């Protein structure tokens, strides 16, 4: 199922007065992958957390396929992968995935779990505890866990932060196929411009805090994307455009940009 996410007038001011997100309107097209790109600490994670229902908005509304985030949460319609893999260290990779399935009230299908573990390149580590895995492997396990419940909405908060360059490229090649095939609406928070262009259909560039959308860039490179993606001229065009928007956003708020 593909769901559309509509945010209107959404803002977040933390107790103490820090304004993280300025009121913004935002529609994430069903089945698309949207990347949120912005400087560190700009409020992009806060935006993702509000959509995930993990953070209350100070004002505005969010609907996911016409329903409130809490309803989507309740029917296990979304999944989050954080920069911190947040695996339970006393459970093996497989058991961590099984717990997500249990909590989402979805059946455990061993073959599907194996398939997912294979997909993220963790063959042979299904019954290993996170403590014995490298940082990148843990993150891949967390991504497998997020995918396991077949969510309608996939929220990725810098999930490739600790993954090495090679694995990152491999995941970038393999993962979109999974969520595209299912029509999963995906929101990716990242500060890597090339990652945003590689993975997404649309890039929203945010200003430094408080976050406001300073550019909305459509990445019209057809899918499935070729393996020589980075060599394509349009890839570079999109990277340049994103960079330009980012720099402009920072320059416009220069007094705040020192942080």
């Amino acid at each position, binding site marked *: 199922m593909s769901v559309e996410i509509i945010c209107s007038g959404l803002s977040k001011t933390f107790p103490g007065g820090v304004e993280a997100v300025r009121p913004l309107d935002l529609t994430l097209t069903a089945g698309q992958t949207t990347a949120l790109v912005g400087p560190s600490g700009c409020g992009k994670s806060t935006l993702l957390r509000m959509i*995930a*229902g*993990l953070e209350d908005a100070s004002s505005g509304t969010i609907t996911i396929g016409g329903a409130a985030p809490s309803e989507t*949460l*309740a*029917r*296990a319609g*979304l*999944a*989050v992968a*954080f920069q*911190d*893999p*947040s*695996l*339970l*260290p*006393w459970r093996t990779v497989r058991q961590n995935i099984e*717990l*997500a399935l249990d*909590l*989402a009230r979805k059946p455990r299908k061993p073959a599907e779990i194996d398939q997912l573990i294979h997909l993220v390149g963790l063959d042979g580590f299904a019954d290993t*505890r996170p*403590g014995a895995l490298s940082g990148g492997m843990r993150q891949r396990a967390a991504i497998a*866990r997020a995918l396991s*419940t077949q969510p309608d909405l996939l*929220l990725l908060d810098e999930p490739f932060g600790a993954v090495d360059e090679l694995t990152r490229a491999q995941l970038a090649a393999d993962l979109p196929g999974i969520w595209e095939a299912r029509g999963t609406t995906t929101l990716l928070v990242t500060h890597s411009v090339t990652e945003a262009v590689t993975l997404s259909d649309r890039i929203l560039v945010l200003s430094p805090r408080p976050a406001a959308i300073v550019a909305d860039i459509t990445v019209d490179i057809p899918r499935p994307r070729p393996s020589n993606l980075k060599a394509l001229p349009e890839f570079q065009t999109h990277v340049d455009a994103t960079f330009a928007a980012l720099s402009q956003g920072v320059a416009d708020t220069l007094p705040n940009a020192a942080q």
Partner: protein
Amino acid sequence: MTATALRPWLGPILILLAWESLAHLFASAFVLAAPSAIINYLFDNTALMTRALGVTLTNAAAGFVIGNAAAILLAGLAITLPRSENMIRALALVIFCLPLVATGPILRILFGPGTGPQITLAALAVYYTTLIPLLVGLRAVPSDWLDLVRSYGRGRMTALIRVRAMAALPYLVAGLQIAAPAAFLGAMVGEFTGAERGMGVLTIRAMRDMNIEMTWALATLATVVAVLAYLAIGLAARAVLTEEPPVILAAPATGKRAPHKNLAMVALSTAAILALWWGGLEALNLSSFFAKRPGDLIDALFLAPDAADTRAALSSALRETLVFLFPGYLAGLLTGASLAMALVMAPSLANTTMPLAIALRSVPIITTAPLVVLLLGRGATGTIALIAIMVFFPTLIACLHGLRQAPGRATEVMRSYAASPAAVLRYVRIPAMLPAFFAAARINVPASVLAVTVVEWLATGNGLGSLMALSASLSDYDMLWSAVVLTTLLSVIGYGLVGLIERRVLSTYAPEQLA
């Protein structure tokens, strides 16, 4: 003053009101003094109380300084000479496990009249709780920092002073905070055994006279002083430190060694302790009439004509002690852990109970032993309750800390699957709490043995505590020293056994702590 500002006071105020009305309700039972009566007593006897408090405070302060200085020196030694650490830890543990009930009278003989025993007991009560966090703190330094010092060609001493000592400060403060009430407790227990003045002397007198107001007034005063000392160190720390003092949960000491190496370590430590025991007494040239050497005990326990009787007396006392110790210890652990879970499930409850729990953590529990005896009688209930109370608070604090130790954003991942609070508790918080729970369980073994022996001595009149007190007053020093060894062994073995279970738990639930 708004309702929210009043909220933290609501719990304590309700408790005071309930206390006052209960006291009036059961006035004829002579067990409970009302808060108003306690305040009255304190006002009527200000001179007596201030004098006693001054004496005890002075002794406690002296012991506090000596004990903590010793802890800091030992910790520094252990870090600069890593080979010595296991030996230092083992000796420190055994000395910490010596039963105060018996070390009191023995020190009294050694020192004669005066304040020696009080100060020594206060020092003994604090050094271990400072040493262990300090050792953790001195190590809680990213190895990069140490490499940085080395890259400038400087050695271990520089690293210790410039890097480790600074990193250990919050841990030292945490240790000192726990030490302050402990020093007060040590000084009071020291005064129980033949001192001329002090709060301990008055406590014994109040109990003997069945003076309810006085008993309660003394316990209240001790509590207030301990809480104030705890808070004062916390405030001083906040002025120096940028972060809250950590809750210390040191992993069990034994490293990843083969079993035979651990056995070798135990044997070596035992030999060192025996040598220190024998050598110390010889060096001080103490009469073997009361200063028993290891050889004297072997003689008394296995070779003397009445050896079988001695052993029988010891084993029956041990049985009596264990009967109370086990249920009390387990009850304390379970209530502590359960309340911690309840507080996490109902955060609003935590707002009112946490200030109280933190205050009560610093109460020198043993000084309230007479009260528990008054309230619950000299039977099993009173003894078990006191052990449970002794174990309960540290367990509660440790478990609350542990429950918040969920890895990364695991609780948020749970929430993103709409997991109920109960599911989060079950799958994330309780497993994450286990290391803290077992650390508390281990540290509480000596505390619960201390509690049971003190109650046996002051109230029930059976078990090892009573045997030690009795043999001290009868000058049966063979029996006294044997009972001391037995009680110490009980603590050390219990500590070791819980440590073994803890290591198994940690290897699954917190492998990084064993690294």
